[in-house]
């Protein structure tokens, strides 16, 4: 079941088109940077954009920072929102559920496929950005950390992997919300938009002082904490909080999705 869901995801043209689109903006940014050599002023614009001018091998991080606030969560919400509702809309859900495969297993398979998609997207974006960054922006032996000290290539590589892991994890909260909505409606679009509305509300509240008491619990609160992996030494506080918060979202929303899906009438 899990294997076939993975194969289904990988065989879908949509998966690859989405990943291609996710690569478009960072690549454009790299081209512009290479042509103009003018980065944003330090402190403004996505993290790393200023640093990558000095070293293209940091560009994967810049690319992830570019897609993280909007494009990646949109892609995740679309894929996760489609996972159950898409089957309902096609009419295949009922034919899956009359087979001797438990609903729990089906939901797990769907979740694994979504996680695989996120991981694939993040890794491909990072890899493409590495190539693009090295070619267009050049690579120096020594990269500067956000704190200004020097990181060895090995350090950069390890921290990039950690960042990929953290970003993937950050997306699981979105995925869990979209998956819950996906079990509640027969419209994949409604599920994706519902999850996005949730994230947009979260981002807005983060900028609102009156919402300060809520802020530590908002799902997007610690997303950009992966930048802290590139401080020297690594600043773990927000990263750990981010992981904890995502875990709570995943448990609560997946739990609700499971409770809803396993007892649901299949009327479509």
């Amino acid at each position, binding site marked *: 079941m899990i294997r076939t869901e993975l194969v289904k995801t990988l065989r879908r043209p949509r998966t690859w088109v989405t990943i291609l689109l996710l690569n478009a903006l960072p690549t454009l940014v790299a081209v512009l940077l290479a042509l103009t050599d003018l980065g944003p002023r330090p402190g403004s614009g996505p993290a790393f954009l200023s640093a990558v001018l000095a070293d293209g091998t940091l560009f994967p991080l810049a690319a992830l920072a570019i897609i993280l606030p909007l494009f990646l969560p949109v892609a995740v919400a679309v894929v996760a929102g489609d996972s159950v509702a898409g089957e309902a809309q*096609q009419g*295949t859900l*009922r034919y899956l559920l*009359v087979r*001797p495969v438990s609903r729990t297993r089906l939901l797990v398979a769907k979740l694994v496929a979504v996680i695989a998609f996120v991981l694939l997207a993040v890794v491909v974006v990072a890899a493409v950005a590495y190539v693009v960054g090295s070619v267009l922006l050049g690579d120096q032996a020594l990269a500067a950390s956000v704190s200004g000290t020097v990181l060895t290539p090995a350090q950069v590589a390890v921290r990039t992997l950690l960042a990929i892991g953290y970003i993937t994890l950050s997306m699981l909260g979105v995925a869990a919300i979209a998956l819950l909505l996906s079990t509640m409606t027969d419209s994949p679009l409604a599920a994706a938009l519902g999850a996005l509305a949730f994230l947009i509300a979260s981002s807005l509240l983060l900028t609102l002082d009156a919402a300060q008491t809520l802020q530590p619990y908002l799902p997007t609160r610690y997303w950009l904490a992966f930048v802290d992996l590139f401080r020297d030494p690594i600043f773990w506080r927000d990263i750990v909080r981010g992981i904890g918060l995502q875990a709570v979202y995943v448990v609560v929303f997946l739990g609700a999705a499971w409770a809803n899906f396993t007892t649901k*009438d299949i009327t479509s």
Partner: protein
Amino acid sequence: MEHAVEVEAVGRTFPISGGKQLQALEDVSFVVGLGEVVGLLGVNGAGKTTLTKILATLLLPSSGAARVMGYDVVADTRGVRTSMSVILGGDRGLYNRISGRENLAFFGMLAGVSRRDLRERIPLMLDQVNLADAADRRVETYSKGMRQRLHVAIGLLSRPQVLLLDEPTVGLDPLEADRLRETIHQLRREGTSILLTSHLLLDVERLADRVVMLDQGRVTADLPLRKFAGLAGYAAVVTLTYRGALDLARSLPAGAAVDRHTHEGELSTLVLKLREWSGDLFGALGRLVDDVQIQDIDVRPARLEEAFATLSARRP
């Protein structure tokens, strides 16, 4: 276990607007014997699909209990799903971007059919439903009938002991519908127990051993096919085209009633309804028409339509 399907006092309500409940099924009880084909007949909205879905473990009953091959549809879903296949009618529910063969392989695998059996059975199934030539085309290029036949192939691939069919011929052209009926007929010969739902009498008439009639969520009749047809009030209809003069007032045999008698130039047409299917009655009919020149005779058993009309008319 002597029954393939047992339905005991099943009720099902749906919440509708205004906090009210719609009673889609009420105290429904009947059985399908092993190897038996039961036609579940009823107008649209009678509750046929709801019942089929309860038996297929897609909906829970609000009250009562049901078993498929002895497995409870609530407590033992795995057993039910292993022994039963359901074909829910319509042409949705297939993966459009992959081929018919791949759909078969995917759903077959979900049903727990081993790789070896899949390799062996898929070509056979494709042949049986006449899709061998189109097997490697994407399903999105299939006609409605082809999709429906693919559903049948998918349903049969796991060799289910019980088959639930919900309006299998709906939306098919007459030729496609007939092909589908032929496939079902073959299964019946192989001993599969079948619950066939339809609002089309023709399906039931051709395929069922017994008829359960559902009306507004309740069972209003549960009879062998022959008896059900008898509810029409007559067993056969005779249509006679002849030249000459008939004295009906004097020689019409008891047990026959004139339905229609028309004249067109030299030719007359007489439609008679016979209360029973008996040699005596046919003999008497023969004597009746001795004096005239027969152009054409057509004798047909009463149709379910007619029984259906009688039953529906009796509704309070």
